């Protein structure tokens, strides 16, 4: 059974709640301290983008499973969804060093590196949906 947590983001409080929800689930699932921090940082960056650029949206965190020969692999998936302005040039934004925050490795490319899987969909004028998964090692 999958566990899910939805958090509305329209203020910095929302960012903190999303982090909290993510950390709780990561702990429960058995992620170590460093991976908890990485997962939470990814949530933080995505939630902050919603707050800054789309004003409001939601962060959904849920457990996911993947059957492998070695057994069932468990992980956590973040979905960050908003109906904001969308991202015009995704390719540019995914380039290292693009962020307005000065290119110190944070931002979306940083999130992608913190996670194991990363997917982004965005339509200008309609909104953005980013999903990312971190597997339990």
């Amino acid at each position, binding site marked *: 059974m999958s566990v899910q947590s939805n958090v509305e983001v329209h203020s910095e409080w929302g960012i903190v709640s999303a982090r909290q929800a993510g950390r709780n689930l990561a702990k429960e699932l058995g992620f170590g*301290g*460093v991976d908890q*921090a990485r997962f939470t940082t990814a949530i933080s960056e995505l939630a902050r983008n919603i707050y800054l650029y789309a004003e409001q949206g939601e962060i959904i965190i849920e457990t996911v499973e993947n059957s492998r020969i070695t057994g069932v692999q468990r992980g956590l998936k973040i979905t960050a969804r908003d109906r904001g302005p969308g991202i015009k040039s995704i390719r540019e934004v995914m380039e*290292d060093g693009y962020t307005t925050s000065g290119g*110190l*490795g*944070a931002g979306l490319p940083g999130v992608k590196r913190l996670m194991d899987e990363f997917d982004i969909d965005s339509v200008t004028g309609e909104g953005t949906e980013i999903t990312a998964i971190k597997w339990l*090692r």
Partner: protein
Amino acid sequence: MADSYSFMQEQYTKILKTYLEEKNEIGLYQAQQFSKKVLENQISPEEVVSLHIEALEHFFPDLPQGARDSFDFLIEIMMGYGMAYREHQILRDKQKELESEINVAASMQQTFLPDEIPEMDTLDVGVISVPASKMSGDYYHFVKDDNDCIGVAIADIIGKGVPAALCMSMIKYAMDSLPEQRLQPGALLENLNRVVEQNVASNMFITMMYGSYDSRVHHFYYSGAGHEPGFYYNKAEDSFEELYAKGLVLGLNRDTQFREYHKKVEPGDFIVLLSDGVTECRTDDGFIEREEITRLIRQYSDLSAQEIVDNVFYQLEKLQGFRLRDDFSLIILRRKV
């Protein structure tokens, strides 16, 4: 990744234990060596904090909860460094990739330049062209026809590096496609000017000096397009004069006309063509004087044309602490006796 982490964990615990027991410089030296290993194994900063807390918990099972919790805080603080660290690794790989691309482009560019300088009974020719970085914005070109007439061009694309090099490749093809005006410098520049004006971005300019030397009668005809003046050395008077040619830079105005100048060349006289990287040699005291260049040329004037340009380059390179600020090209054509 996971393997190297647990291996590092073991090592870290061991050297930290030794240090805590003996508290001496050897232990700290081991830590310093370990920090290199951490980087080699691509362990990120937040993982180092985690190595530390795990080792501490091992040595001090009764570690106060507050101290333990403070490490979660520290891990969070280190996340920024961790992200910057991972980006750094990627950018480093990217830079290597770019560098090897530029190396390929630079060796391609070398093929645009003549691979040998013309050998003639009447003229002693010396050429040196050195880019400030990998790609050059200077260009030179020689053609020799059946009548022992030689055409020589020296050009400087305003700007440096890759954009200048791209522009230079265009100049090369444009020159190759205008063979018939070879001996008429003015007409050649007029044609070239139209090609540049039509094909090159309006913020790119090219200066050029083009000359043709008729070695049957020893006349030198030349025209210039905003190019750094060269020198003419008069052997009989043992004096240098400016080799100046009035004309607008290429690409500025479609209908520019270029005046043609003429010199009668006597035995031992020589023509010096250069790019502004030679005259705009910068030392800590500012630009060098043009006289400095003629002084150097005179100093080596007993040598062959090639040895003169090589030596002048060496001296000017040395003057600048072996760091060129601009592409450097120097050509000497000397009438043999």
